[in-house]
């Protein structure tokens, strides 16, 4: 591949790679969710990404970046349920809508993608940064690629930065108290445990970056 961009064909492979990464984390995500929620987050993520892959392989070859994201979102939302189903489903759909007409994902598109995801997550889930949700990871990644410019305008480093930032933010959620209005059920006991949705979003971004990095090295 051209390390500077991701074509629709690349995106299919990338999402399959992400699905595998998520599957490998199933037990870990369940355990995180068990600590502060109901223990199903890993199952839900695995089911959702399995559906995404099934859906993608049925799409016509001509499907563009926008269609692939939109259909992924519809598939994810329709297969999973749970909070994450609607949230991540809508985020994927929003990414598709925001990338309408773009033939490939380059650095600019990656920024658009993260920004669309964050704003959809906020408008749907009504959480704020610091509430100990997936938003903390999304927000950190989006902020990082917006604000910093560590290696110019190259896609792979940008993706890596996003993944790293999301991961760090996810880990930091362990120190947060869940926002009372949303998750009073957790209380003080949530302290010390990271938010499973934040962790799984960082897995999503990290896997994307890893795929891009591996592919660009192979391609290079």
């Amino acid at each position, binding site marked *: 591949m051209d390390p500077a961009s991701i074509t629709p064909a690349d995106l299919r492979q990338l999402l399959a790679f992400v699905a595998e990464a998520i599957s490998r984390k199933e037990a870990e995500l369940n355990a995180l969710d068990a600590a502060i929620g109901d223990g199903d987050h890993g199952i839900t993520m695995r089911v959702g990404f399995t559906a995404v892959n099934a859906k993608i392989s049925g799409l016509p070859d001509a499907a563009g970046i926008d269609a692939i994201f939109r259909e992924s979102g519809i598939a994810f*939302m329709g297969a999973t349920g749970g909070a994450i189903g609607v949230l991540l489903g809508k985020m994927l759909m929003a990414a598709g809508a925001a990338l309408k007409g773009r033939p490939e994902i380059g650095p600019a598109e990656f920024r658009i993608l993260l920004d669309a995801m964050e704003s959809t997550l906020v408008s749907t889930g009504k959480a704020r940064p610091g509430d100990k949700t997936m938003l903390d990871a999304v927000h950190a990644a989006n902020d990082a690629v917006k604000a910093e410019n560590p290696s110019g305008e190259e896609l792979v480093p940008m993706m890596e930065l996003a993944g790293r930032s999301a991961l760090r933010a996810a880990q930091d959620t362990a120190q947060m108290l869940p926002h009372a209005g949303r998750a*009073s059920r957790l209380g003080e006991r949530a302290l010390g445990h990271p938010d499973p949705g934040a962790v799984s979003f960082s897995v999503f971004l990290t896997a994307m970056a890893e795929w891009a990095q591996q592919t660009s090295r192979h391609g290079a």
Partner: protein
Amino acid sequence: MKKLVNDPNAAAAEALEGLALAYPQYLRKIEGLTAVVRKDAPVRGKVAVLTGGGSGHEPMFAGFVGPGWADASVAGNIFTSPPPPPIYETAKAVDGGAGVLFLYGNYAGDVLNFDMAAEMLTEEGIQVSTVRVADDVASAPSEKRNERRGIAGDFFVIKVASARAEERAALAEVTAAAQKANDRTRSMGVALTSCVIPVSGRPIFEISDQEMEIGMGLHGEPGVVRGPMTTANRVAQDMIGRILGDLPAKQGDEVAILVNGLGATPLSELFIMFRATRQLLEDAGLLVWRAYVGNFASSLDMAGCSLTLLQLDSELKRLLSAPAASPAFVQEG
């Protein structure tokens, strides 16, 4: 983990299939969807009551579908709200032209998915209103009552709303009845053991052989106090104390009470808990108008129970005692 299941990923779907196959006199499954509807759905001119949520709480929700009960229930995976598409499809299948009331437990996931389905339906001109059951006193202080989660109180809210719909009340009236029941319902749970989700095969929390946790939620959400296991009378006293501290009931008021098993607690213990609870209510000057004891909203194979009080008025008594028939509860007129 020892469970009578096949593929653990299919447990929720197979349980629903089994329910539908066992009780064709009350309901049927919608082909291709994890949803059941009243045998005679759609009922023309009647507001349709649609309930549902994550699986693992059997007989809640699908066990309460039938005449005098809900028109439909949509099931998600274990402990996971169903996604919007089946909710949307099912609502369309039961809409009798008078609109649909969505009734479900107040959990973030359910709210997101049911709201999304409601949006899709509204776009098509189908009237939808929503009441989110929020009876669990342990889950938020009374100033934030609308943030509380729903546990066994669904039973009362669904019964009341369904009976009102059966009277051919309009959507706004059915919604008002459900809201009234919800406003007057309070629950408190106690967990003795963790449940085990079939797919993971592991307990979702640790609790020792000497401990119990008061206020724990139906999905193992942390409760208000963990302490040493004690007698049924003391457990009931703690739970009822918290409920009565929250419910604005006064001497002489009538209540309905539900003693609900969480899945692995035998009926004998629920009867002992009822005995204790009834005495406490009597001591508090409340009159037990009707009692319901059994497994109504479970948490897979968790041991423990919940107590739910509904503060009655004449409308609620009329609606609660209206005839109704479903797999989990039959009542004569």
